């Protein structure tokens, strides 16, 4: 009797400590966002005076108005949106067509092709040979250099093929007998069945394209074609926050710290917007994400 009381009391403490640890971890994850958000809206005077601003007395959106009255910031945001929308669409089309084809047993030579694709996940020839291919194709300084060389990857193809494997061939055969042609089978049966899986891949592609940085470091030299992440790097890391093109004199006074914070928030909002949809697919995403190249 006594020992069981002890156990429950011990268990109660155990779960309290657990909950406390988790709350601390969650706060550690949240605090930087909270702080960045607060400072982006605080008045210049408060930003300059306080060491650790936890809640501004005066709210202002001047930092955001500054960013969007420059010429560089909206342009870079536009490039990143273009990548996230067009890039994701292209990636989904290419990846799903290839993996569906590879999942069908009537495709000749599919074993060899699968092996070739697996090989690309194991051996990476490095940065320079890939760079030379992009350069020889004349894609340097083209927005397409941020999409076409990263359209798909061996991991994505193999993962999606695994999904298409689960669509029984009998379903297609039935449709073929009913007079559907191959294109009809793909368009009317396979695609509708795989919409939710495609959505999951699409969301992870979209986040990756929105966060495009490395390929832009390699392939884009002209500031007019910078995606948002490169502009952010210039603002945050190199501290060049005078973006130019601002005519409203009231906005010249915005502290550089506020501009940086506002830029971080703008670049994070789209991710927060798709986040609830992403959450549905975390289990799948853990596989997609953990094997990112």
């Amino acid at each position, binding site marked *: 009797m006594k020992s069981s009381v002890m156990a429950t009391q011990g268990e109660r403490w155990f779960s309290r400590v657990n909950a406390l640890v988790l709350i601390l971890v*969650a706060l550690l994850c*949240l605090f930087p966002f909270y702080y960045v958000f607060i400072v982006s809206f605080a008045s210049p005077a408060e930003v300059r005076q306080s060491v650790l601003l936890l809640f501004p007395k005066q709210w202002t959106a001047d930092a955001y108005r500054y960013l969007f009255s420059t010429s560089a910031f909206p342009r870079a945001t536009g490039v990143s949106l273009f990548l996230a929308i067009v890039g994701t669409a292209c990636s989904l089309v290419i990846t799903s*067509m290839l993996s569906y*084809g590879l999942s069908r047993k009537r495709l000749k030579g599919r074993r060899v092709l699968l092996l070739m*694709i697996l090989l*690309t996940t194991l051996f990476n020839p490095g940065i320079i040979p890939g760079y030379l291919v992009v350069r020889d194709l004349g894609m340097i300084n083209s927005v397409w250099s941020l999409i076409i*060389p990263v359209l798909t990857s061996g991991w994505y193809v193999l993962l999606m093929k695994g999904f298409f494997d689960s669509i029984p061939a009998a379903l297609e055969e039935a449709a073929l007998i009913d007079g559907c042609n191959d294109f009809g089978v793909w368009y009317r049966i396979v695609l509708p069945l795989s919409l939710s899986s495609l959505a999951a891949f699409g969301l992870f592609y979209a986040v990756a394209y929105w966060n495009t940085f490395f390929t832009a470091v390699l392939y884009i030299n002209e500031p007019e074609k910078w995606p948002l992440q490169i502009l952010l790097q210039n603002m945050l890391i190199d501290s060049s926050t005078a973006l130019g093109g601002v005519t409203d004199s009231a906005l010249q006074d915005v502290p550089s710290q506020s501009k940086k914070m506002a830029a*971080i928030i703008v670049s994070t909002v789209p991710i927060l917007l798709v986040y609830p949809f992403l959450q549905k697919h975390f289990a799948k995403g853990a596989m997609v994400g953990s094997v990112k190249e």
Partner: protein
Amino acid sequence: MTMLRTMRRDLFLYLLVLPGLLFFLIFKYVPMWGVLISFQNYSPYLGLWHSEWVGFAHFDRLFSNPDFFLLLRNTLAINALNLIFFFPLPIMLSLTMNEIRTRWFKGAVQSVIYLPHFLSWVVIAGISLIMLSESEGIVNGLIAAAGGERIDFLTNPRYFWGVLTVQSIWKEVGWGTVIFLAAIAGVDVQLYEAAKLDGAGKLRQIWHVTLPAIRNVIIILLILRIGHMMDVGFEQVYLMMNGTVSEVAEVFDTYVYRAGILQGQFSFSTAVGLFKSVVGLVLVVIANRLSKKFGEEGLY
């Protein structure tokens, strides 16, 4: 004849795979061929076919270069720190999360701690600067306000690896729990009940039931991690690197970028990259063997 007929019947299927296969051919297989320039004095004007062959000259240059040991040391050190400090954390965190019975609380915590995974390294590096900068950073602001001396987290080589490790933990620790939580969810509830009947408290249940149940997942992830000992995230290091810390910051990929893209030494930098890739391939193959030896499926 029948072959032709089936090919024609399946024409649509071949059309479907064609663009994807072209992609792999051009962007994955041509570069594999392209590593040959590491055995040449590649000149962009002459191209691969007409450039002069020099054998292993670039590799000789790499191995006799003191920079090489610096690169190797930094790469291995950053990965070792990751292995020691980062790797156990998601396991511990998921054990903690598994004990939470309140649904909404668990869901809320998950939503929050997964989020940093989806942010770009630019944002993470920017936030790090905001937190750690010597003159404007919050941490130093607090230290100064408490009467302490400001610390040069970002420009002192002594702190650089530590800063990278903390960043990686902040960005990925939550996301790292996904796979362990999935494994824990598969544990048979009856095992816990049996353990309880035998008088095991919470900690002993974790030790004797949960941990053994996810041991295989831990081993596989550990092996995979070791298989990637040569990889350090380019974006993270590139963004955090500055002149004063370059000696501890330069890793293979940043070095290749500098020598190849910025200085145009295509052949030499390809050789550096090829060395890294070959060692990486060997490590992955060994890791895969090991994981099969432990009775697991392996990566391929």
